[in-house]
């Protein structure tokens, strides 16, 4: 994400017309900036309003004003004490980590085979994997639920994570990355007698850190936010993930809006932290998936 130079700065000083165009461009850019700021602020309003309300005492939330007479953290305290939100954080952390690690390992191994090894039906294998992109997970909830029931995995974290691990898109990202890596190092390793697994682990994977980061973070966020599937397989309140837990207590606060917003803000905090830490990886991951493919 390099900073862009406006078109005219590099060609400046080419006479009167150039100066005119410069001016027009400058004005245009200023208008752009104004519109953009307005939209960005508008976009931040709901989040700011949630935080603002969460800092009010419940009694003050009936006034639709940004001003807070008696700011307090009491709402956060009540949510932490009255709900199992800390358990939900734990459940989300475990399932999202499990999904994320599982996806990175299985997808990178498979992508290594498709990118580096030659074998019969290689293209066919890749096409079968690709076809998986076409099947939205939501279409499979009924048979997958039956399967988890039969395996006795309902109300376990395995039930949440396992079906989310085999994602074709992750293989895709890894394959593209591997395809772009130079082969000299692994050639040398081959000649030295290294096996393929050692090349994967010691040569290719250390070079593939950006792809690992993109896949890991993106899988983590997607898994953390998933609602429908964990809602089906987790019915035990102690095991619920953050989205499922929040969905079940949604109505419980009634008109205690400060408490409701405090639960929303608390539910948002872990991922906002992840986002702030890994902003670049997330953004590049999305851009890479979408465009380079």
């Amino acid at each position: 994400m390099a900073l862009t130079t406006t078109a005219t700065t590099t060609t400046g000083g080419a006479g009167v017309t150039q100066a005119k165009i410069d001016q027009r461009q400058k004005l245009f850019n200023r208008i752009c900036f104004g519109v953009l700021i307005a939209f960005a602020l508008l976009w931040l309003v709901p989040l700011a309003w949630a935080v603002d309300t969460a800092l009010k005492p419940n009694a003050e939330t009936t006034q639709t004003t940004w001003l807070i007479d008696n700011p307090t953290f009491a709402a956060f305290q009540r949510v932490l004490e009255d709900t199992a939100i800390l358990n939900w954080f734990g459940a989300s952390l475990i399932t999202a980590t499990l999904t994320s690690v599982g996806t990175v390992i299985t997808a990178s191994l498979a992508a290594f085979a498709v990118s580096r090894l030659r074998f019969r039906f290689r293209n066919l294998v890749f096409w079968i994997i690709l076809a998986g992109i076409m099947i939205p997970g939501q279409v499979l909830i009924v048979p997958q639920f039956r399967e988890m029931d039969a395996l006795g995995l309902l109300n376990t974290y395995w039930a949440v994570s396992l079906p989310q691990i085999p994602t074709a898109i992750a293989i895709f990202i890894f394959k593209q990355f591997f395809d772009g890596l130079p082969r000299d190092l692994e050639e040398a390793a081959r000649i030295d007698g290294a096996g393929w697994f050692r090349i994967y682990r010691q040569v290719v994977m250390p070079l593939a850190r950006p792809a690992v980061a993109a896949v890991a973070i993106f899988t983590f966020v997607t898994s953390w936010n998933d609602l429908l599937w964990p809602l089906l397989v987790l019915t035990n309140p102690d095991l619920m993930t953050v989205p499922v837990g929040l969905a079940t207590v949604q109505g419980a606060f009634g008109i205690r809006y400060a408490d409701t917003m405090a639960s929303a803000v608390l539910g948002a905090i872990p991922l906002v932290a992840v986002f702030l830490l890994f902003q670049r990886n997330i953004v590049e991951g999305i851009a890479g998936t979408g465009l380079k493919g």
Partner: protein
Amino acid sequence: MSIETVTPRARPAEVPGSPASPRQSHGRPAIGFLLPFALLYLAFIIGPAVYGLIMSFFDASLVRPGLGSFAGFGNYAEALQDPDFWSSLWHTVWFTILTTPPLIVLAFVLALLADRVNRGRWFFRLAFFAPFILPSAVVALIWIFMYTPELGLIEAALSKIGIASPAWLGDPNWAMPSLALTTVWWTLGFNFILYLAGLQEIPRELYEASAIDGAGPWQQIRRITIPMLGRTTTLVAVLQVIASLKVFDQMYLMTSGGPNFATRSILQYVYDQGFTNFRLGYAAAVSMLFFLVVLAVSAVWFSLVRRQEKEV
């Protein structure tokens, strides 16, 4: 996600006699590398897909094991004759129609503006993208409060400029547009990032050359930016349509499909039939019908991509 990456690239290493010689096959290591993924893929995607297809021809029930009695195409016939099936399918399509154009056009415009601005781009990325990483449950909590009659921020803001608010989520006609507005706010950032990345791939020299030729900003946008972003737009549009068709969370959390089932989506219909009415076989059949719709959209996308690649 396009087809071009499937073709193996030219391999400089394929000199005869070198370790990666084409004559040498690595079948056995390949199986080892593919196995972990293949097992999970078979067990949790392909297996359930096949089982779901079989189930859709039976009267399977949540409360008894096994498939139940054979129903032939009975489940499919019933779904196609059920007005509730068609209305929930229509709600899903209506939601898609309401969300897709703003999510494409607004994302494009904002990315275009952000691309022209040198300062503070991190701030815009933060503002537009931050909502996207929030769980739907958090988004629902915040927006239900915003839409609350009398206390909500939206009604307060509108009444200040003299506009009377409808009941938003409580009004059958306004509930879906309200959900659409929330969704635009929530997911715009994803498309914004895709467009921003697409814009950065356009060579700057094109703009410089056209500026020397006297082209103004509008002409540059019309003649350079929009045509150069054709592929990005195809991608954004299809990803968006598929994402919108899969809508479930917003309705489930914000309106429970109401008022009076006015916002029940097709996935919620599957959920209700399968897990509230225990009719798994029927729910599997409806899933298959929904899958056909998604498949049709994907097929249109593939043909569009093919055509665009031929043009290049």
